């Protein structure tokens, strides 16, 4: 019984962190078919932004979160104007953009390495202590904060996408780019907004991840791969599906590392996801296969 509770607690924590980054990736893919390989480096940058805000500038700790979110959004804009802006609608765009954003990510990661060095830092924005026990399993305040932050941001994103003008424009572009353009939606502006939004979420995701581990330049690489696996499982571009799939992957990983050994978490996820994709190539939650050429 304790094992089960342990799995659910750590699975939900992992799943919440994956969800924030996977939803952003999925949003970007859905809008302009770009698999953003720089997403992981934006996560790392988000964690470093809080470090800069608190240690270098001396902001109070709670200001560092919005500071990092704004920073993440700006980085997203930069990624757009460095790569997507020039490459959209060119030949082999879908594969070339992966390599181009890979290059950007490499620059950001090694830039961080150059400025901050490879030494791990502790995330200043964190809470300590155990909130209580469920059964015999201790639940940290940190986990609760992660759940709450992820839930709030997911609900906010949901409201943004369904209730606001900008959100409707984003969904219109995701459904039919040319149709949206003909209806007078400023498509290029929507692309920038989407990448800003996704990078903002990635920055928060990076901060949450760094509260459980440490801040290092390459900290985004592993979560990025997990987020990729999540959106493959969900079906590329399916945002709600990405949320469910993230929780599912978090639970699978937590089961494997609790019941077996921590290093088997990732291999087990991969095997499960490949089997799931052989069974349903369009993803677990992909209802319609949208083939874009």
């Amino acid at each position: 019984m304790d094992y089960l509770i342990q799995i659910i607690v750590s699975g939900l924590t992992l799943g919440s962190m994956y969800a924030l980054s996977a939803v952003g990736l999925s949003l970007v893919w859905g809008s302009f078919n770009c698999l953003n390989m720089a997403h992981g480096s934006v996560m790392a940058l988000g964690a470093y932004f809080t470090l800069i805000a608190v240690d270098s500038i001396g902001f109070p700790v709670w200001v560092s979160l919005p500071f990092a979110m704004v920073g993440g959004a700006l980085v997203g804009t930069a990624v757009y104007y460095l790569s997507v802006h020039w490459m959209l609608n060119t030949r082999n765009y879908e594969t070339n953009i992966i390599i181009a954003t890979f290059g950007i990510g490499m620059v950001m990661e090694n830039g961080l390495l150059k400025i901050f060095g490879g030494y791990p830092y502790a995330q200043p924005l964190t809470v300590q202590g155990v909130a209580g026990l469920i059964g015999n399993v201790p639940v940290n305040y940190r986990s609760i904060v992660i759940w709450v932050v992820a839930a709030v941001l997911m609900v906010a994103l949901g409201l943004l996408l369904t209730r606001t003008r900008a959100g409707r424009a984003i969904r219109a572009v995701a459904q039919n780019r040319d149709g949206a353009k003909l209806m007078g939606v400023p498509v290029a502006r929507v692309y920038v907004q989407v990448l800003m939004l996704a990078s903002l979420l990635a920055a928060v995701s990076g901060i949450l991840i760094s509260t459980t581990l440490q801040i290092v330049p390459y900290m985004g690489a592993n979560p990025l791969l997990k987020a990729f696996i999540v959106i493959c499982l969900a079906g590329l571009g399916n945002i709600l599906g990405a949320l469910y799939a993230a929780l599912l992957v978090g639970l699978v990983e937590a089961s494997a590392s609790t019941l077996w050994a921590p290093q088997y978490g990732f291999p087990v996820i991969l095997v499960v996801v490949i089997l799931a994709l052989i069974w349903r190539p369009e993803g677990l939650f992909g209802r319609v296969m949208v083939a874009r050429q």
Partner: protein
Amino acid sequence: MMRRDYILSAVLLVIAVGLPWLDPPRYLLAQGLLLFCWATVVSQWNLVFGIAGIFSLAQIAIFAVGAYSTAMMGRYLEMNLWYAFPIAGVIGVIFSLLIGLGCLRMRGVYVALLTIAVGQVLFVLIMGDGECSPLNPGICMSFTGGPSGMGGFGGFGWREVLGGRHFIIGDYYSMLGLLILAMAFTFWIIHSRMGLAFKALRDNPELASSRGISRFKYQLLVFALSAFFTAEAGAFFAAHFGSVGPGQLSFTLLLFLISMLIVGGMGRPWGPLLGAFLIMGGDEFLKEAGEWRHIGFGVMLLVFMIFLPDGVAGLIDRVWRRLTTRGGAARAGKAAPAE
């Protein structure tokens, strides 16, 4: 193969074979050998990615499988590595067949994501492997060697034949032989029925598949066959350095190799060779730059993707075609009134 290709291969072959006779510094031979190794890997990657259109990032995983299986056969079975090489190649083929069966039914981008994950999983498994294995008597070493890698499995054996001073020449020619075979294989694939099938699938997918050309079948075939030389390159790499480690699965190596593919020119038979030469040459200049080296690579990838997506080979091709067609058109124009 066109006449241009024959001339080019002859010239390159003379240079590569002749180099050791000029008594160059040892460092140059060692770098040349490494160049052959990377060019072999990238030439097979080019077949998979550039010709067959599979966006696979599993190449370094296959490379590492070749290296590790050679090392294990040498260390645990005490095999002569020359017997281990073909077995390592076959293991690579089987490994890639399994990946292909799992991933190739999906579309391009899914393949990229899943294959990159395969390499990462191997990396995580090797790094986390800390259990002492009974196969290593006397010391506590895990089966894969864990983060510190493994050694002690022998080498090409040229040291015994040529002596300690000149063994590197043997290694050099071994690696060159591998590259020649890999390049010959590349040309053979491009001009075989498989190459034709991919051309047909690219030019008119509907017609090609209605004529019974199965994309999945041919992709799986190329994916598996090209794994042989990739794994072999890993095996030769292990034999030359006498050690293997998880660094062969790192993102850094992936970036290094993909830069060769992009800068050289994807989908063109000579692209990988050109790319390997340019990147390794450029790397020599960036050696002193330290951390700037990786930043430089990142910027280069971005710049090439935006301005020269078909690489230097593509640029040369375009310039060549413009020169020849303009010349041809002018000649045709002059010749016409005379008739």
